[in-house]
């Protein structure tokens, strides 16, 4: 079991300290990424998805800190406790970009405007491989070709402003994949792109996953994307994973009221505009003034007094867990 895992996160707590106030952005998050599989992390904006990704990469802003818990990268050399590495130390830097790579939401701003795309992809190779300058140039063109960028030789010499949004994201993926990482973290990689381009990017990621056996952590706020791409799902709400399991577990047998609400809010393709989409009642609470118990209680149709206490994670099946006091009753009623 353990040796098919690429990464395990246990009880991770990452807090932000701004204006002397504490924002418990991640308040005990546990999950695993399986080798060569896609873990979809889904949740409304502000629930801690990006902070989870930054914690794994040790790219947190200065005013935030991993307070508790562990992040273990199961490398070929043995387990590495990422949370114990120095943030910008040599060991962390050699993992970043080489073994765990990341792509970001907005490809428009994620590339440096004054360097050619080829140069920026080559930089990763320069620091993580022994390739000569000439070999790096060849590898860059190979990568761009694999990403489906036409006339890659020309394109490598061009600057980000010569690229369209979709092409920039492809270039970002080329950069991330350049050293054949074991894990690719994609933080809302298509949110800034239009729908047809989205599909192309996802196809590309799926192809890379199967060809290179890369594990993917795909962050999104779109359940539809999860349904298409993920093997496993983690549903996040306000710093907790409220439900996790395989795609079948979570999408077919959702246990948590929040998961159901999210599922109810996806429009179904082909049903037209007038379908009954229920948006989730209310808004996410102020992260500095969080509810005491279950974070979702104020917006939940099933909340009772019991929900004033923080629920614990309970196993539904071997692969499926949920964080709700009342999931059994609710499930029976449904």
């Amino acid at each position, binding site marked *: 079991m353990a040796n098919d895992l690429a990464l395990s996160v246990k009880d991770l707590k990452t807090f932000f300290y701004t204006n002397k106030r504490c924002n418990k952005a991640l308040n005990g998050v546990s999950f695993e990424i399986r080798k060569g599989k896609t873990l979809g992390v889904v949740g409304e904006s502000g629930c801690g998805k990006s902070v989870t990704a930054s914690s794994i990469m040790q790219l947190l802003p200065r005013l935030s800190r991993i307070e508790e818990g562990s992040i273990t990268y199961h490398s070929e050399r043995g387990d590495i406790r990422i949370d114990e590495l120095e943030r910008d130390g040599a060991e962390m830097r050699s993992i*970043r970009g*080489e073994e765990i790579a990341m792509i*970001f939401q907005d490809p428009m*701003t*994620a590339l*440096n405007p*004054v*360097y050619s795309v080829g140069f920026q992809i080559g930089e990763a190779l320069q620091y993580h491989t022994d390739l000569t300058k000439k070999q790096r140039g060849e590898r860059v063109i190979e990568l761009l070709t694999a990403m489906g960028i036409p006339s890659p030789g020309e394109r490598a010499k061009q600057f980000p402003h010569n690229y369209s949004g979709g092409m920039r994201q492809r270039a970002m993926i080329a950069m991330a994949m350049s050293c054949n990482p074991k894990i690719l973290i994609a933080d809302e990689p298509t949110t800034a792109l239009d729908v047809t381009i989205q599909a192309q990017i996802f196809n590309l990621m799926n192809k890379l996953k199967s060809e290179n056996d890369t594990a993917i952590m795909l962050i999104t706020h779109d359940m539809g994307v999860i349904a298409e791409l993920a093997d496993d799902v983690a549903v996040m709400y306000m710093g907790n994973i409220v439900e996790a399991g395989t795609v079948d577990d979570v999408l077919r047998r959702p246990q948590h009221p929040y998961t159901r609400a999210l599922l109810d809010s996806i429009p179904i393709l082909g049903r037209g505009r007038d379908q009954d989409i229920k948006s989730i009642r209310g808004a996410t609470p102020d992260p500095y003034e969080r509810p005491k118990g279950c974070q979702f209680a104020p917006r939940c149709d099933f909340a009772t007094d019991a929900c004033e206490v923080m629920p614990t994670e309970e196993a539904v099946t071997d692969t499926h867990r949920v964080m709700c006091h009342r999931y059994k009753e609710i499930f029976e009623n449904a």
Partner: protein
Amino acid sequence: MLTFILRRILITIPMLLIISFLVYLGLELTPGDAVSHMISPDLTNTVTEEQMAAMRESLGLDKSFIERYWSWLTHIVQGDFGHSLSGGVAISTIVLDRLPATLELSIFALVFSTIIGCVLGLLSALKRGSATDSALTVVGMLGVSIPEFFFGLVAILIFALNLGWLPVGGRLLPSYDSYWDHFPNIILPGLVLSLMMTAGVMRYARSAMLDSLSREFIRTARAKGLPQWRIILYHAFRVALTPVVVLIGFRLPTLIGGSVIIEAVFQWPGIGLEFIGAVRGSDYPLVMSIALLSVLAVLLASLIVDVLTAMIDPRVRLG
């Protein structure tokens, strides 16, 4: 890139024409003309109107304004700036004679303020909020707000008169034979002239650096696993450099203006000092030529800055 430079030069030409016309017009509007200045005040009463008219005709002053402007312009284009009224030396000779001193001073100040300004700004940004940063900020504010001549006088008082480390002024030591022999002379005027610019560059470099450090491509660079120095120099600083170069370009005219004052304070025998002498002596042709040359220098500087920015920032080349 070549077409960019050519286009940029073509834009400069009409600007030069307009400015030369304005300079000539300004001269035209000053009271009296060359003839009245050439006659010493004691003789004004004895010279007849006819003699004056004859002199005007011989100098071409009876022609229309436009004709005179045209002939002045065509001469200048050929490098003939006419003659100084006092002494009758060719203006081009005077300028060529004085230019090296001014260039030396300006280039010293430019290089110093660019390098030191950038280094201090970078340091300040990287150590944001620290004591170093606050100290540099205060120094920077003083630097941009205190006038140069004041700095110059204080510097002379302290380093030349009280401590006696450096010469009071002038450019050459009596025993001048190599550059290093007169290097001590340039230190004070050079530093004082560059002070304001250094402070400006520093403050600008700091904020440009803070801005570029907060951009998303920095996170991408970190996610690639690049070492810190490379992220700072290759990614953050390179992007911060564009606005800094533009600022230096904007400030170049103040460097040229400042050198007039500094040359006067330190008796630095450059064009600025000559200019002050010319203004005092109502040597209008000389004043006019120097003014025109300064404009040319400013335009040239902004041309160079534009080309530099285009080289640094690929996005500029599009426009």
